[in-house]
């Protein structure tokens, strides 16, 4: 079946099998940041943005992407690098396997919540499992990253 959608800003036209999931399609299109970490829609590793909202690409039929804007980490390299430096500074990552889904969900949170509390951050990210860490370093890095973005915004206004 024919599918037309936007992937990281580029219009794509693809022939897809009726039962294909978005995750599989994205990987065939070279988006290897999108990974499958579970069979139960539980881990959040496959998170991508669909029309700016975070969804589990392992559970969305590819055909539901029709006409939609899909963004993966490949489309947010600069932003991911920027946030990645905060993660590294806090020693928050170990094997790094969970990072792509986790980072995409942080970008979604940044759009959706204004000045979130620690509790709100943890609630928003509860669907991203990390097998190595206790989320303490991650939470610290997110708070510092958000504070940095806020200060950048303020500086922008002043200029």
């Amino acid at each position, binding site marked *: 079946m024919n599918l037309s959608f936007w992937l990281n800003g580029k219009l794509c036209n693809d022939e897809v099998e009726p039962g294909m999931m978005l995750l599989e399609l994205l990987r065939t299109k070279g988006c290897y940041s999108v990974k499958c970490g579970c069979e139960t829609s539980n881990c959040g590793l496959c998170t991508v943005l669909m029309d700016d909202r975070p969804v589990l690409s392992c559970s969305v039929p590819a055909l539901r992407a029709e006409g939609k804007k899909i963004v993966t980490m490949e489309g947010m390299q600069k932003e991911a690098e920027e946030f990645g430096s905060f993660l590294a500074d806090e020693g928050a990552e170990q094997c790094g396997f969970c990072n792509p889904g986790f980072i995409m969900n942080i970008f979604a949170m940044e759009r959706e919540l204004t000045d979130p509390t620690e509790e709100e951050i943890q609630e928003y990210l509860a*669907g991203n499992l990390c097998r190595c860490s206790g989320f303490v370093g991650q939470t610290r890095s997110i708070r510092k990253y958000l504070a940095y973005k806020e200060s950048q915004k303020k500086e922008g206004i002043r200029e």
Partner: protein
Amino acid sequence: MLKIKNYVKVKSIAEAYELNQKKSACVLGGMIWLKMGNRNVSTAIDLSGLGLDTVQEREDEFHIGCMTSLRDLETNAALNEFTQGAVRESLRHIVGVQFRNCATVGGSIFGRYGFSDVLTMLLALDTWVELHHAGRIPLAEFAQMKKDRDILEAVIVKKTPQQSVYLSQRNTETDFPVLTCAVSLCGGRARTVIGARPGRAKIVEDPDGILNGLTEMPETERTGAVQKFAEYAAEHTTFGSNMRASEEYRKLLAEVLVRRAWETLGGMKR
């Protein structure tokens, strides 16, 4: 694994109903649950093009389209104001934001899952379901029915004046609940719902009127009535065991959750 032969994005509910009469056909909600099954589907019926993915506030009811995501329900300001945040509380522990952006109200209610927070919460309100073939029926009736091949178009929450409180217990964050509990004073009547027993959520009636006039009682009397009803509810509900908890534990837990929920609704607890 779910294998799909044909995928049809239907143009109307009537078309969906027609296609769904074949046993090998299957309606797709958010597909979160379906995906985990092993099934060969001849025709997958996608309702996502019918504009049934919003919560509409009308004069006397909330009309929740079957494709509304759990996240949209959770963040709907009007519905949460109406239920004093109980709806949000019932949904926010379900896996994660990305999950709730995918899972639908239709799939959650049509599935009538034993563990369902969604079913427990909605049973405590004046809730109806709109089915293409069977029409509008109370959710309490629908919850008891066997699965058939009808299409659930929408869930209706009537604006019957109510106060409600939702509580659940999980062994760990984002896991399935060990027990769910919703209580409400809906149209002046006390209603208690216990779910994840682990069977389907059930309404526990108050035939002896233990909670009658709860909000007007002096505090000591109110405390006594709530304790008495909590014991009654735990005693008159059937529980079972599974990998998450034993029958005995659930029974003890039910008494605690019912008491706490009514204490909150009665203004004795925040």
